[in-house]
């Protein structure tokens, strides 16, 4: 059923609102959180679309809507040629084999009372599929593939470190050989050194199985390592979408500029000298978003027109779409150095998805000892836009 364009996912004018209820004795709907408000994009076969935006911009809600974990208010979601928003839970079953999810928090995403074997084998059991050779053999092959020791089949999640847990989550997601995997910040809860391993694993799996990823992250640095295209989101709207090179080399939207200038530079001296675009104030409430351009309350370019007219998402170059009345062409000072240092940053190899020559095999991924020692999980870095002066 693959369309001729090789498109796996198409999202059209997606809106997902959450009702806000009063706390009265008989609760009443008194408003709506417009978590996602008119978002359109598509993801091609074996392609990774990065989705970035600060906390609260609606990325997780997009991810959950795509898999119908929350029912969208309106819009279409087409997975592998089939529109799914109108399907009943039963009719959704076959689609669920095609699209899976990897979660942000590896401590919450695995049932603490199930063994690893039970967790990774769950997709087969739920879908009623008997893999050739049986579930156990299939699960152990998956464990091996993602860099886990197959002998740990009967262990419980609390005996694994954060990185290993994320591998368990990945094994579960690829069990049914899906075409699309939605990754909701899959590495942001992990140690920096482990982040790179997980990203490499995801990239290898993409090569091997021709997977498509919708890859959510809250900053442009992580997304850069894996995405072919990048979409920037703010307060439920898409601000800019472009091929990876363009987003980093020739961004046009003021919000993308501010996100770029927030990408941390490992070199403290450079970090101090560079100029930063600081956003004023906080993210406005998605219950009552600003008129016109939703970004206007914090935009350094904002003019009167921005408060009356919603800027449409326009294609300014092939594959490059921007929603802004007054796009900015010049890069913020210092960003080239920032990106250059990122390329050379140890432990985070920036590898192009193509060509297939320089792949690291999964055997080379170091197997962490299953000693139950959790990684020191850093506090999740928030986007540095705003606040700090």
């Amino acid at each position, binding site marked *: 059923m693959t369309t001729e364009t090789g498109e796996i996912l198409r999202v059209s004018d997606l809106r997902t609102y959450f009702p806000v209820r009063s706390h009265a004795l008989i609760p009443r709907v008194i408003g709506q959180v417009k978590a996602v408000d008119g978002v359109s994009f598509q993801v091609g076969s074996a392609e990774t679309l990065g989705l970035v935006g600060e906390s609260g911009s609606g990325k997780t809600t997009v991810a*959950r809507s795509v898999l119908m974990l929350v029912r969208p208010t309106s819009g279409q979601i087409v997975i592998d040629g089939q529109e799914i928003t109108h399907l009943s839970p039963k009719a959704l079953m076959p689609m669920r084999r095609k699209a899976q*999810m990897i979660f942000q928090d590896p401590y919450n*995403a695995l049932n603490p*009372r199930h063994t690893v074997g039970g967790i990774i084998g769950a997709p087969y059991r*739920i*879908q009623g599929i008997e893999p050739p050779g049986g579930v156990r053999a299939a699960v152990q092959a998956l464990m091996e593939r993602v860099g886990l020791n197959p002998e740990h089949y009967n262990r419980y999640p*609390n005996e694994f470190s954060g990185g290993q847990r994320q591998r368990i989550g990945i094994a579960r997601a690829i069990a049914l050989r899906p075409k699309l995997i939605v990754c909701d910040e899959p590495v942001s809860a992990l140690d920096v050194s482990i982040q790179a391993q997980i990203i490499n694993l995801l990239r290898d799996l993409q090569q091997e199985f021709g997977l498509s990823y919708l890859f959510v992250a809250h900053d442009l640095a992580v997304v850069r390592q894996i995405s072919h295209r990048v979409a920037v989101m703010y307060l439920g709207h898409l601000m800019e979408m472009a091929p990876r090179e363009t987003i980093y080399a020739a961004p046009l939207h003021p919000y993308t500029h501010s996100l770029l200038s927030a990408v941390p530079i490992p070199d403290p001296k450079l970090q101090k000298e560079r100029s930063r675009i600081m956003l004023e104030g906080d993210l406005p409430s998605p219950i009552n978003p600003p008129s016109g351009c939703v970004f206007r309350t914090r935009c350094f370019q904002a003019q009167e027109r921005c408060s009356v007219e919603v800027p449409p998402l326009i294609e300014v170059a092939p594959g490059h779409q921007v929603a802004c009345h007054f796009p900015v062409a010049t890069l913020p000072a210092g960003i080239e150095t920032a990106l250059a240092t990122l390329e050379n940053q140890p432990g985070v190899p920036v590898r192009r998805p193509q060509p297939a020559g320089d792949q690291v095999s999964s055997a080379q991924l170091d197997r962490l000892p299953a000693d139950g020692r959790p990684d020191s999980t850093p506090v999740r870095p928030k986007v540095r836009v705003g606040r700090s002066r």
Partner: protein
Amino acid sequence: MICLIILIVFYLVGIFGPVVAGMFGISPYTFDSNAISDLGGKPYGAFGGISLAHPLGVEWGTGRDIFAQLLFGLRISLIISTTATLLTVTIGVLIGIIAGYAGGITDSLLGRLMDLILAFPFLLIVLALSGVLTQRLTDLGVPEGNVSRVLYLILVMSVFGWPYLARIVRGQVLSLREREFVEAAVSMGASRRRILFTEILPNLWAPILVYATLTLPSYIGLEAALSFLNVGVLPPDTTFGAMLANSVTYFNVVPTYLFIPGTVLVILVVSFNLFGDSLRDALDPKGGH
């Protein structure tokens, strides 16, 4: 874990009580007129008539063996408290899961029902309804006498006991269903049934078990209190509460009559509570993440 051993012994004695009594050649139902004085029925000998034939003495007035009464009383106490706990836990878990998972109006209605039950003056109701409802049970075909009285106790304990557990379970379910592993199951197409029983329920066992081991001793105590208040079993059968109620009259003359069942009751209840506490400690660190 000494408390666990004590509990196992208690249950064994409860189950094999008649055998033990047979071994000692005693029975709770046999009157022994040789052990008491003809006038007033005061037991012969010190400490309420402790002798080789009656290791813990005999009952005032009838000469029935105290040790045998304890054995048989323990049996009834354990039957009542264990059954009532099982029933309480079943109802509480079921309603707690439904309220927590269904949410919305179902949750609100069940919540109000729990409030209502918790607001009832329990003791008053139990005492007031005892006669009527026991009669009702007899009418429904339950054998008259102590069988329907025991059943009545079990029913009122369960009916008034489940809301506490249901509240705990509801809260747990509310937080568990927001966890990402539930979302993961949904994204694979899991049915409601699978989510409830395979994903959520296994995470509830620890709190349920702990709650049960703490409820059981409170029911033993409650049964004793109700027997004391004459809602419990009737002679010639007996329980801790009934024995205690009986003994109060003679406390000044034969204090052992009060102390013996009292001590056994305290040991039983304390062992259960200690066991519940150590169970909680053992299960808790694994339960979270």
